[in-house]
């Protein structure tokens, strides 16, 4: 009978499913060893998810056509130096989810055609110097989810063709200078979920083609200036670190950046010139840079679609904002110290604008002029005392308007016919009624006083009062009685809803009517 791995008359071992074309799937069969009697022409062999603890010498000796070998999810603790001999055409070797404590360097030596090597999710603490000798074709290497305490610079030095490397989820604490010096072909480098506290000024020298660098979930305390050596960088992540300052000209050498993930850092200062000339930048989120006083320059950020800049001491929005950022769709400038609004004309693609919790006092005629795509506008918790009557006239797509907790006394309704949510609670100076017909699509409205809800939710006694009061409050309501009788057909929720102790009449509470 044929030994393990030896070719046999039958095209396939009884444990496996073979397609007769060179693919054998023997995964999840509870095997304790490599199945026997495999076809000599097998090019794909999957023996993952079995109980194989060791690979003896020459176990694949006659599978010389093998290109992909899957051994993931076994209990491999030992691979004999001669175990993989004869596999001269092997391109993909999967050893992840095993119990290896070191890289089986001798076993890998003869795999000259290997392109992808998975060693992730083992218990590797040691990477021998000669681990990857002879693997000149290697392109993709997984060493993540192991126990490495440092970047294995020596062994990695042999891998000049490497294009993608992950060392994530290890215990690496620092990246020395020139750690990746020979990696001019590297495109992707994952270092997330380590304990990296220190990155040398020249750590990333040599990575001329790197496009993705992931430093998320580490212990960095200063901005990694080493990124300045990465001219092709497109995606950079260092969220969930301890970085307080983004320095001036931070990304001056990274003109191709599209995404920068830097949230969940205790930011306090952002250099004004940090984000200049990033014409491919797609989105930028800066929260809580509490000591930042000046709006960072976003000159040249023509592709920016989403900007979040909250929790700073910024007091003004630069007038150039919409001249540069004409691709902007969402803009969140809440929780700053903004007092005055410029015109947002150039931001004609803007869909969401959040200016909540600032110190804005006036809304001018041209503030929101031309924002025909705006759906959501949040101006709540400001100090708005006056809104120009045409301020909303061009907001034909506006569906959600939040003006709660301000100080104005009347609301201009021109342009608000598309609203389905309107929030006005907390505007104690606004005592006059509001006419439902200006809001044909309204579904939810919150008002300063309960009696104002009566016009929306049908308290009979108020309808005449509303027509009478109209003159006093200056709110232009067309007093055509037929139209006044028309109810809003859609179910509408108005708060605070009138009740026994919040009667529809405004003056004297008319207890007598309530009691009879």
């Amino acid at each position: 009978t044929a030994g393990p791995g030896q070719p046999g008359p039958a095209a396939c071992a009884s444990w496996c499913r073979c397609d007769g074309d060179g693919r054998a799937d023997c995964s999840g069969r509870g095997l304790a060893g490599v199945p026997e009697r495999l076809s000599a022409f097998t090019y794909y062999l999957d023996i993952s998810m079995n109980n194989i603890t060791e690979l003896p010498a020459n176990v694949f000796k006659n599978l010389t056509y093998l290109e992909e070998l899957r051994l993931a999810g076994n209990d491999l603790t030992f691979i004999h130096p001669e175990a993989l001999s004869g596999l001269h055409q092997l391109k993909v070797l999967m050893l992840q989810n095993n119990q290896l404590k070191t890289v089986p360097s001798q076993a890998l030596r003869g795999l000259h055609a290997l392109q992808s090597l998975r060693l992730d999710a083992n218990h590797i603490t040691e990477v021998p110097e000669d681990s990857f000798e002879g693997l000149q074709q290697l392109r993709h290497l997984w060493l993540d989810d192991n126990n490495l305490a440092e970047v294995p610079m020596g062994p990695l030095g042999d891998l000049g063709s490497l294009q993608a490397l992950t060392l994530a989820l290890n215990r690496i604490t620092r990246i020395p200078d020139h750690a990746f010096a020979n990696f001019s072909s590297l495109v992707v480098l994952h270092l997330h979920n380590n304990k990296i506290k220190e990155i040398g000024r020249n750590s990333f020298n040599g990575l001329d083609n790197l496009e993705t660098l992931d430093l998320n979930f580490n212990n960095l305390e200063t901005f990694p200036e080493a990124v300045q050596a990465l001219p092709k960088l497109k995606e950079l992540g260092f969220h969930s670190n301890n970085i307080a300052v983004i320095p001036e000209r931070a990304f001056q050498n990274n003109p191709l950046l599209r995404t920068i993930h830097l949230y969940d850092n205790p930011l306090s200062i952002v250099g004004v010139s940090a984000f200049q000339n990033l014409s491919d930048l797609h989105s930028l989120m800066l929260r809580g840079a509490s000591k930042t006083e000046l709006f960072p320059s976003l000159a040249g950020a023509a592709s920016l679609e989403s900007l979040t800049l909250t929790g700073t001491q910024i007091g003004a929005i630069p007038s150039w904002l919409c001249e540069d950022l004409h691709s902007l769709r969402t803009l969140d400038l809440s929780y700053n110290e903004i007092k005055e609004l410029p015109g947002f004309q150039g931001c004609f693609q803007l869909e969401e604008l959040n200016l909540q919790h600032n110190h804005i006092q006036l809304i001018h005629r041209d503030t929101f002029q031309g924002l025909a795509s705006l759906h959501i506008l949040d101006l709540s918790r400001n100090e708005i005392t006056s809104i120009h009557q045409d301020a909303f006239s061009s907001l034909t797509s506006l569906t959600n308007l939040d003006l709660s907790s301000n100080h104005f006394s009347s609301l201009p309704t021109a342009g608000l016919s598309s609203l389905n949510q309107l929030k006005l609670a907390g505007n104690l100076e606004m005592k006059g009624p509001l006419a439902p017909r200006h809001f044909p699509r309204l579904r939810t409205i919150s008002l300063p006083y309960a009696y104002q809800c009566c016009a929306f939710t049908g308290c009979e006694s108020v309808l005449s009062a509303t027509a009478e009061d109209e003159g006093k409050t200056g709110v232009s309501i067309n007093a055509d009685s037929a139209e006044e009788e028309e109810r809003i057909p859609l179910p509408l929720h108005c708060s605070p809803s009138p009740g026994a102790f919040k009667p529809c009449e405004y003056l004297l509470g008319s207890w007598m009517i309530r009691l009879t």
Partner: protein
Amino acid sequence: QSPGVSWGCHGGCLTCSAANGCLSCKPRFFFFLERSGMRQVGVCVSSCPSGYYGTRSRSPDMNKCTKCGLSNCDSCFNKNFCMRCKEGYYLYHGKCHVTCPEGLIPSTMQRECVH
């Protein structure tokens, strides 16, 4: 223990149910929602199926298979870096091309742009 959930599951499963398959995975395995007719069934794998890649995180229940972000990619290292293209496309520096950049020729067998 919630009703219908079993801890006696096989392979990389930690908890499972008859109706939904794996509900959670053992550490270091990737969770993947496999289509089974009209249903979706949870499975726990050590390597993700074609067109997906595994993302690992410190919290084990976040290890999952994520779809490659590149169209025409059969096997990817992460969302934006392909390792093997679909038939008719050729790999060059992690991207799949219909035609190869200047100076390179398409190798149909390897599905790559080669010198």
